[in-house]
């Protein structure tokens, strides 16, 4: 099937000389939820802004539903809705006026019933005649989502939709995104939160320093992310790992004072109880133990430094 968005060789160098995107290639499948993960300054917003026509690419091409975003910008943009990262709203307009305006801007004839449905879905209907400046931050974000949905886009970009948003709105938003997906809309969202990607996405892309270093089905990636590290602080330092513990693939750390065991939380058996039993059989004592989840940071570092394939 033809990808709904096809990015090839996309590069962006800002006037400051900063290279924000380095030869990015990416295909987004029709109807999927794609989460773009990456630390601050990775280039997520830059990539979205280019696709939406807000930033000029330095080189490379992007097509949206087969339409080149530069040559055939009208057809491409009609299909796309964008909720940017920053809250940018008019102050003096009412909610209703600003959402109606957006629909017109995207070339669609007025459709009050559709606008009503969106405002109701986003719990904005009661506020429809309120001036935007009188709304709270979370409500303004809802207004921006309503604007992006006003012209019934086939592709929706959500740039950090849940940054600075309370739990309830986050739940609502996730629900809305799922509903949109059901109706066939392709969704691309960026986030810093692994849990969010886990909750929502079908596929995940990881970008750092302008490079897309990994694109993977969520299930596959979550397995990698599901790994934890068990650290045992030994009572007595050890020089070599006894052969009897060979089946656990342990590593010795901190000058032989610590044993580290990496295990998979998604696996049927973690191997921890048997490891501890075997150690006690061998008379190896430990003072303390702890487990920790690989952090997003570590995963990025791992992904950058280990060649593909080795990581899993």
């Amino acid at each position: 099937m033809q990808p709904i968005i096809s990015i090839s060789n996309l590069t962006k160098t800002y006037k400051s000389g900063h290279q924000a995107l380095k030869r990015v290639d990416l295909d987004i499948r029709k109807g999927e939820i794609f989460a773009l993960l990456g630390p601050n300054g990775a280039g997520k917003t830059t990539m979205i802004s280019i696709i939406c026509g807000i930033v000029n690419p330095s080189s490379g091409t992007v097509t949206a539903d087969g339409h080149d975003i530069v040559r055939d910008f009208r057809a491409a943009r009609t299909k796309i809705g964008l909720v940017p990262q920053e809250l940018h709203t008019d102050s003096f307009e009412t909610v209703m006026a600003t959402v109606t305006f957006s629909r017109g801007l995207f070339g669609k004839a007025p459709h009050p019933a559709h606008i009503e449905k969106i405002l109701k879905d986003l719990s904005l209907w009661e506020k429809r005649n309120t001036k935007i400046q009188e709304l709270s931050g979370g409500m303004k974000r809802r207004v921006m989502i309503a604007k992006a949905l006003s012209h019934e886009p086939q592709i929706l970009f959500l740039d950090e939709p849940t940054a600075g948003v309370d739990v309830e709105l986050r739940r609502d938003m996730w629900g809305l995104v799922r509903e949109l997906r059901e109706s066939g809309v392709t969704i691309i969202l960026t986030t810093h939160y692994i849990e969010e990607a886990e909750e929502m996405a079908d596929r995940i892309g990881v970008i750092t320093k302008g490079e897309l270093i990994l694109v993977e089905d969520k299930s596959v990636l979550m397995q990698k992310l599901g790994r934890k590290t068990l650290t045992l602080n030994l009572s007595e330092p050890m020089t070599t790992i006894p052969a009897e513990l060979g089946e656990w693939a342990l590593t010795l750390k901190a000058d032989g004072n610590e044993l580290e065991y990496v295990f998979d939380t998604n696996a049927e058996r973690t191997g921890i109880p048997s490891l501890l039993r075997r150690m006690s059989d061998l008379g190896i004592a430990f003072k303390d133990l702890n487990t920790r989840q690989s952090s997003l940071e570590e995963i990025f570092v791992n992904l950058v430094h280990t060649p593909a394939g080795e990581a899993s």
Partner: protein
Amino acid sequence: MMFNRHAVWSIYKFEIARFGRTILTSLLTPVITTSLYFIVFGSAIGSRMTEVGGVPYGAFIVPGLIMLSMFTESISNASFGIYMPKWAGTIYELLSAPVSPFETVVAYVGAAATKSLLLGLVIFATAHLFVDVQVAHPLLMLGFMVLIAATFCLFGFIIGIWAKSFEQLQVVPLLIVMPMTFLGGAFYSIDMLPAAWRTVALFNPIVYLISGFRWTFFGKGDVAIGISLAATCGFLAICLVIISWMFKTGYRLKN
């Protein structure tokens, strides 16, 4: 979709609504200023200088007054219209919409020009309260007003894209256009100047615009009407070239 008329109409309505929020000040201000000009220039100066080239002084300054307000208001309305979304960040939506540069200009400049035209007519009506002005070529007068409104709104639109601060937004209308209009014969005929100054004045493009507009009122101006029209259209053409260059390169709109 060859022409995104829904978008043009949406932007146009948005801009008109923006003007509508300040309609009282927008319309009262020109009425009051015009009245003041008539009291100061018309009565004080007019009592000493009864006519210019056969036209009573009070009537003589009407076209100049209309032009002065239309120049400055066109620039500030149009520049504000595009500068505000840039400043507030809401421009992202326009940039991401299926709207061509041509449609953007038609909508923004069209709305600003509508307001300028209205303003010009209000001043014209106010002037009638003070003096008796006969217009020799009413249709041409209207046409000239439309042309001037469009040209200066285009010019304002350029300034709005160029400006990086509210201060820069004010600089051109206040520090350049206003003085040039005063010096450009808004309230006198350049024939009244000494020969040397008259030559200098002819380098001021505003002279041609005011002269042309005055011609539509009294059938005579400082320069021939053809030259005035050519100068106006030339200015319009320059603005169009600059705007299309701005959109082509994304100048100060896109990174």
